[in-house]
């Protein structure tokens, strides 16, 4: 059975909430960090908290860099005309949000930088449809800014420059190195989405999707211990909020894995800024889509 397609208004509401209201787990993590911090780091964190409250109350963008909408539509079971319709409604919602100050016009010509001003371009927004193994229809959106996107990176193991072999210790070294190289440029304290395995393209894709996972739902299995160890180790680097020293440097690390070619061993890190803007539309049984 296929679900309905969200209306333009429902897409607009998704984008407004995503842009203006941080997820509760992210806000809680900022709040906990603030209690433990002082000095410059404390000032920066208190600005982050105050900003989140102001943005939610005013329904205005948490950050002026509203990114490029990354959309994952799961379990809708749409045929090709349904997918066209989905994309058309989403594009209309982006145009509305761009003219009303919910989104910044961020789609520019690759070579000339010319900005058509409506937030739409070739390959923007990014939409992915997945239908296998889904119980409920959902539409997830991630608004990820350019600063954090620019510090994402990929390692091909073995990597002798950081002493990383093809094992858990090698993976650990890659992720710490990525956090060190980013310093504060991705707007720390960040959330690191990591893909172990995959190929060049799927590694980046799957690393970014880890940012949809909640901070209070850690991995189980092989990566569970590594995720929490890495948070402590990266936070001991002293990079701190916005890279101005102190702690924390990360709010969380989420690791997922994909099968790989025997000859390849990629570790890919997607850097999510502290203002991690992810929201979901959930289909209710009566056909209405609700933002959660």
């Amino acid at each position, binding site marked *: 059975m296929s679900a309905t397609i969200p209306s333009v208004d429902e897409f607009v509401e998704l984008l407004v909430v995503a842009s203006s209201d941080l997820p509760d787990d992210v806000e809680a993590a900022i709040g906990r960090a603030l209690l433990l911090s002082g000095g410059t780091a404390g000032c920066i964190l208190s600005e982050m908290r105050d900003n989140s409250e102001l943005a939610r109350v005013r329904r205005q963008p948490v950050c002026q860099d509203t990114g490029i909408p990354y959309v994952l539509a799961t379990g809708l079971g749409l045929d090709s005309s349904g997918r066209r319709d989905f994309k058309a409604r989403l594009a209309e919602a982006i145009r509305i949000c761009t003219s009303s100050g919910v989104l910044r016009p961020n789609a520019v010509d690759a070579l000339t930088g010319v900005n058509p001003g409506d937030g739409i371009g070739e390959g923007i927004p990014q939409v992915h449809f997945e239908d296998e193994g889904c119980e409920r229809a959902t539409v997830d959106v991630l608004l990820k800014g350019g*600063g954090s996107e620019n510090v994402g990176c990929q390692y091909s193991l073995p990597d002798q420059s950081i002493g990383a072999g093809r094992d858990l210790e090698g993976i650990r070294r890659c992720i710490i190195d990525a956090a060190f190289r980013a310093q504060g440029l991705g707007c720390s304290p960040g959330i690191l989405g990591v893909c172990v395995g995959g190929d060049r393209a799927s590694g980046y894709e799957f690393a970014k999707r880890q940012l949809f996972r909640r901070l209070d739902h850690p991995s189980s299995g092989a990566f569970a211990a590594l995720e929490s160890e890495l948070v402590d180790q990266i936070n001991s680097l002293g990079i701190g909020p916005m890279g101005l*020293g102190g702690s924390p440097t990360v709010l969380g690390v989420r690791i997922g894995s994909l099968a790989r070619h025997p000859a390849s061993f990629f570790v890919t890190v997607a850097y999510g800024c502290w203002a991690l803007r992810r929201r979901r539309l959930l289909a209710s049984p009566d056909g209405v889509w609700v933002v959660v």
Partner: protein
Amino acid sequence: MSDGFCSGGGSVNFEANQVRLQSPGDRDVIRSLRVGDRVLLSGFIVTGRDLVHRMLARDLPDSVRPLLRNAFIYHCGPVAVRDGAGWRIVSAGPTTSMREEPYQAGILKEYGLLGVIGKGGMGRATSIALAETGGVYLHATGGAGSLLASRIVGVPDLRYLAEFGVPEAMWVFQVSDFPATVTMDSTGSSLHESVLELSRERLAALVGP
């Protein structure tokens, strides 16, 4: 915090120097600032991102010199909404400053800027130019777009909108108590360099050299 300054958050008393600044302002005041000082800036600041910096470096336009003289340039591409004949700024945090490193030193000197507001800090050439001109780099909190926009009380001027679009245009913001941290000062000191060095040492301790 009735004076508007930050008290330093949860667990540690904040001992940094806290200063109110004006833009345009007095270079001797700017010269006396040191890394770690917290400031609240009021007056007029001018935004510039990649296209504005390239244009300022290449075209040397006289028309914008009065806007920049003894003022701060702000690395920012805002979210702005038309409001009658004017504009309302709804989100306006800093963008990554390092992209302007090739231009910044020359622009600081050519236009007589007091300094730069941005995020992430800048490199050697800018640091040397700040020392030569008695300027500072002010670090604003990335992602705090809504909070920082609430300190923008007016948009008295706007240049290059048609050419560059909303994020890249040259916006003149009137600001009141705009919060920032001095992270590069006129003695050549840079908090970004010292955090990088400290974290490099700690990285070596974690994973070996």
